[in-house]
């Protein structure tokens, strides 16, 4: 059994093929879907851990689909950022799957509207598993047209998931989301066309080795960036995000906010700092940083003004995305692995914290039937664990130690000071302060127990509704403590240019 060797690169298809097959089977059988989904996400998580181990022992790897080498065939590759994003998806996806189980069984047990909830659950699992396969494919793919297809898979399944709740508002938001996502992928595709016209290549490694740096490549990069920014919802293009994320079902909101956005961001970052690093100018980096700063401030201001919990969390996503972009202009003061480390930390911490927050918000919505922040007093008495999860996730959003976000922000601040760009410092501190305000504004409501308040709603209690959120929140909090280990993975898996084949055909 030669392909069971640890150093066989074939292992890296597991996170793509397993959720894909499981999604197809879920759609086919429509029974025992949770068992299929759970085993798929479990295998996915194990595969992510295995790939990390493989990376640490064997270094970055390439895998050619069907044995056809790079210029024509499609390659997959693992490196530090890719496996860490896989790990992020695996952990978050596992918790979200458990939570979704609790969520749907709660809704189905609820008298009234049973059929509708069963339908929702029936279609949730295949959509979610295929989305997971698309995300993993995006993280691993090394071919620009293949990346476009994974983006389409993600976009379609995410939009369908967003419409799943059946509310008219959710459908409208999902329609906008689908159109924005389509516009984004079409712009991305136009970028691919420009790229193919000027280089005649699709493989990212070969594109990186290309010395040609003409206007065609720049235009391609600009188009692809705009498309991806639209999908990532950076501030001027964030209009679709809050309604889509706030009106979806709670597990779906968690998926969209924690994972889907990270996919397109990851791709954008890879394009900017790996593939086309030589074409990037300081002005472009500053523009991205400026947009990021705008996102931090605008998202935080909007989050403070919201009256509904889920909308607030959604706007906080807009705000937190900004930090990822502030890392762009500061990258000139650091080397490649450092930029990756900051972005990966931020993305992982945000994925765990934000999904924990949406799960908590969903649990609260389920138990109280609304999510008006004004009326959510005394939640602590009924749902102490959920409130705890919410609070811990809030700590991560604020960026307090020892969370992963703290490490990322600390690195950002130190680079900003080292390169004498103090204005970023102001933005980061202001964003964190505002995060503190919007998190505490809600927590203070939760904690206060008004007089005559009785918590009689505990009979609905389900462990799956509370513990995954708490676990994710704790992970996001403790991420800072394992920082050296993550940095080790990133350093180990950093891009080794000698590994790349010089465009050889078989």
């Amino acid at each position, binding site marked *: 059994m030669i392909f069971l060797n640890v150093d066989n690169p074939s292992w890296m298809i597991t996170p793509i093929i397993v959720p894909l097959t499981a999604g197809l089977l879920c759609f086919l059988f429509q029974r025992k879907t949770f068992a299929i989904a759970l085993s798929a996400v479990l295998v996915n998580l194990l595969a992510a851990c295995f790939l990390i181990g493989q990376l640490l022992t064997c270094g970055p790897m390439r895998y050619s689909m069907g044995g056809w080498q790079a210029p024509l065939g499609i390659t997959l590759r693992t490196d530090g950022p890719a496996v860490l994003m896989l790990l992020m998806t695996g952990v978050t996806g596992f918790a979200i799957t458990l939570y979704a189980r609790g969520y749907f069984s709660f809704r189905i047990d609820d008298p009234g509207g049973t*059929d509708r909830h069963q*339908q929702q659950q029936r279609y949730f699992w295949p959509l979610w598993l295929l989305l997971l396969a698309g995300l993993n494919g995006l993280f691993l793919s090394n071919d620009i047209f293949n990346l476009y297809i994974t983006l389409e898979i993600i976009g379609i399944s995410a939009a369908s998931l967003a419409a799943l709740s*059946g*509310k008219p508002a959710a459908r409208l938001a999902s329609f906008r989301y689908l159109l924005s996502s389509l516009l984004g992928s079409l712009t991305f595709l136009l970028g691919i066309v420009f790229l193919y016209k000027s280089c005649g290549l699709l493989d990212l490694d070969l594109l990186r080795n290309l010395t040609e740096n003409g206007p065609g490549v720049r235009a391609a990069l600009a188009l692809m960036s705009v498309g991806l920014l639209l999908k990532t919802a950076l501030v001027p293009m964030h209009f679709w995000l809050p*309604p889509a994320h706030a009106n979806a079902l709670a597990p779906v909101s968690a998926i969209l906010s924690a994972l889907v956005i990270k996919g397109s961001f990851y791709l954008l970052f890879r394009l900017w700092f790996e593939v086309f690093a030589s074409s990037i100018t300081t002005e472009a980096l500053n523009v991205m940083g400026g947009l990021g700063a705008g996102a931090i401030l605008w998202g935080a201001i909007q989050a403070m003004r919201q*009256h*509904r919990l889920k909308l607030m969390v959604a706007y906080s996503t807009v705000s937190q995305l900004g930090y990822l972009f502030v890392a762009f202009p500061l990258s000139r003061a650091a080397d490649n692995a450092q930029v990756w480390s900051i972005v990966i930390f931020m993305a992982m911490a945000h994925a765990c914290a934000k999904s924990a927050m949406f799960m908590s918000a969903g649990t609260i*919505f389920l138990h109280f039937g*609304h999510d008006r922040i004004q009326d959510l007093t005394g939640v602590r008495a009924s749902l102490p664990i959920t409130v705890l999860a919410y609070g811990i996730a809030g700590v991560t959003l604020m960026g307090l130690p020892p969370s992963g976000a703290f490490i990322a922000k600390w690195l950002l601040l130190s680079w900003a000071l080292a390169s004498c760009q103090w204005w970023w410092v102001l933005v980061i501190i202001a964003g964190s302060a505002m995060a503190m305000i919007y998190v505490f504004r809600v927590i203070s409501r939760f904690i206060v127990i008004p007089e005559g308040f009785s918590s009689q709603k505990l009979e609905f209690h389900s462990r799956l509704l509370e513990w995954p959120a708490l676990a994710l929140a704790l992970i996001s909090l403790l991420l800072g403590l394992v920082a050296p280990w993550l940095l080790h993975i990133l350093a180990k898996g950093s891009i080794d240019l000698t590994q790349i084949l010089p465009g050889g055909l078989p």
Partner: protein
Amino acid sequence: MIYPILTLFDILLALTLLWLGWHLLSTEDIFKAVVLFISFGLLMALTWVRMRAPDVALAEAALGAGLTGPLFLSALRRMNRVLKGERRLDSDENRGEDHAKNPKPT
């Protein structure tokens, strides 16, 4: 020499494509737009043949004209039915309970 004739044909085809595209996007009547879109698809199939892409031409003729057009038409009919008030009643439609739970976002 066949070249000038071919170029003339190209220019004509391109202009027709643009004209059709603009009209289908700007007519007031959506039905007319959909019909124009179907003819646009057929013309695109011709363009693919001209571009020596018979595979794409086949797919465009079958998908673009044969499927997308009917899709648009059926959607249009469905929407018009809604506007006329002959709405189909689903058993899985929203009962308004979520409305009661969430007030309008402010």
